[in-house]
């Protein structure tokens, strides 16, 4: 059974994904992702990456706080941005075809933006949900000392998803699990000054996942 653990998996494709958005609303009625970062990983190696700046036909503007945190630059954005349809064409095959989608707080935030994006493009997003590995949930599960209990046989999407939701909906005070604090806690070597750039965040996310997967029986 141990051979089935994800820590030994060299064949599956993991796509790490992170959105930078105009604000923290979960619906396209008042939010859009302006940057999507994706890295494709197989057997602990990054095999490809995407850094997409996404242009939308909308009057929505990036909020002051979001711009400050993500170091958003209008001129840089204008130079690099591509139409949202073009960005979707590049991004969606990665997500559709991969075995796992990994993100930090992906179940609590990014999945809702992905839902909006897919629906705007007239596509169903539901096949993505079962592939999600949310490192925020897994890290919190360890801190809460609520272990993941795998059923007999191979890991199922449903049991992993329910475990992650259980942790996500369990709030405890004074538990820090943001990427930076986890990185420092695990003494992960990373250029922490570049955080909040999508690809830098994802590289740290990958390193955190590499630590987490050794501690959890998935």
């Amino acid at each position, binding site marked *: 059974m141990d051979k089935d653990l994800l820590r030994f998996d060299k064949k599956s494709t993991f796509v790490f994904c992170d959105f930078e958005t105009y*604000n*923290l*609303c*979960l*619906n396209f*009625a*008042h939010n859009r992702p302006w940057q999507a970062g994706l890295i494709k990983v197989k057997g602990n190696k990054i095999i490809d990456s995407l850094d997409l700046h996404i242009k939308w036909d909308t009057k929505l503007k990036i*909020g002051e*706080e*979001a711009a400050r945190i993500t170091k958003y630059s209008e001129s840089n954005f204008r130079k690099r941005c591509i139409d949202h349809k073009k960005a979707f064409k590049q991004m969606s095959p990665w997500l559709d075809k991969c075995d796992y989608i990994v993100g930090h707080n992906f*179940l609590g935030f990014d*999945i*809702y933006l992905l*839902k*909006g994006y897919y*629906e705007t493009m007239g596509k169903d997003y*539901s096949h993505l*949900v079962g592939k999600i590995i949310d490192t925020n949930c897994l890290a919190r599960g360890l801190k809460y000392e*609520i272990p993941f209990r795998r059923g007999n046989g191979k890991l199922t999407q*449903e049991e992993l*998803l*329910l475990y992650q*939701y*259980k942790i996500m*909906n*369990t709030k405890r005070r004074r538990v820090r699990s943001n990427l930076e604090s986890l990185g420092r806690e695990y003494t992960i070597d990373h250029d922490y000054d570049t955080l909040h750039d999508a690809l830098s965040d994802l590289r740290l996310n990958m390193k955190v996942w590499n630590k987490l997967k050794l501690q959890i029986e998935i």
Partner: protein
Amino acid sequence: MEKEGSSEKDGPDSIVDIAKENELEEVFLVDDCMGGFLEAYTNLAEAKIKLIFGVRLTVCEDCSQKNEGAINTSSKYVILCRNKRGYERLIKIYSQAAKEGFYYEPRIDFTELKKSWSNEDLILAVPFYDSFVFYNNFSSRNCIPDFSFCNPVFFTEDNKLPFDKILLSLVQKYTKEQSYQERKCKSVYYKDKAHFKAYLTFRCINNRSSLEKPELNNMCSDTFCFESWKEIANG
């Protein structure tokens, strides 16, 4: 629940108007308290529409316990009136929940609920979200239902939320095992999908948050509306 003809072009829609426009013969109104009943009953009766009224209530293990532990045994139920006697029973149940069981919100437990119960007058429904099935599987709560005195109906919905499919399968598994009835339904909070932003604004005001940071869990779907119900009803 304003009178027929009171909807404003850029203002709130009256449920009576929506029901009338769509030739509905009956309306299920589920409130969080008893306060809306009289207006709803009067205005719908004037429009010759039948009202089936219900209250969404928190049921916990022991409503005399007023602490954080008690919250971990709480989940939502909908109590619907079948008739006038049901309404009288519901007033009793709600009064007790608001007076004796209150802890952040009106609450009752199954022991107390049983005392005022009659299957001839009331229906116990388990909502799709915030139910014991949801909390027991998607959170660390431990809610133990007691259906020994009633025959509950389980509502199911599809609002394209990320966890809808998995929740549906859990509800279906439970109802199949226990031979309980399931009813496909749709929670309606506003008229059209296009009104979602206005609804979200309203919720943010109540939540003392902003559109930029609503802090409302899972508030991602614009299908909690009459327009979506119509799409389903029309196949």
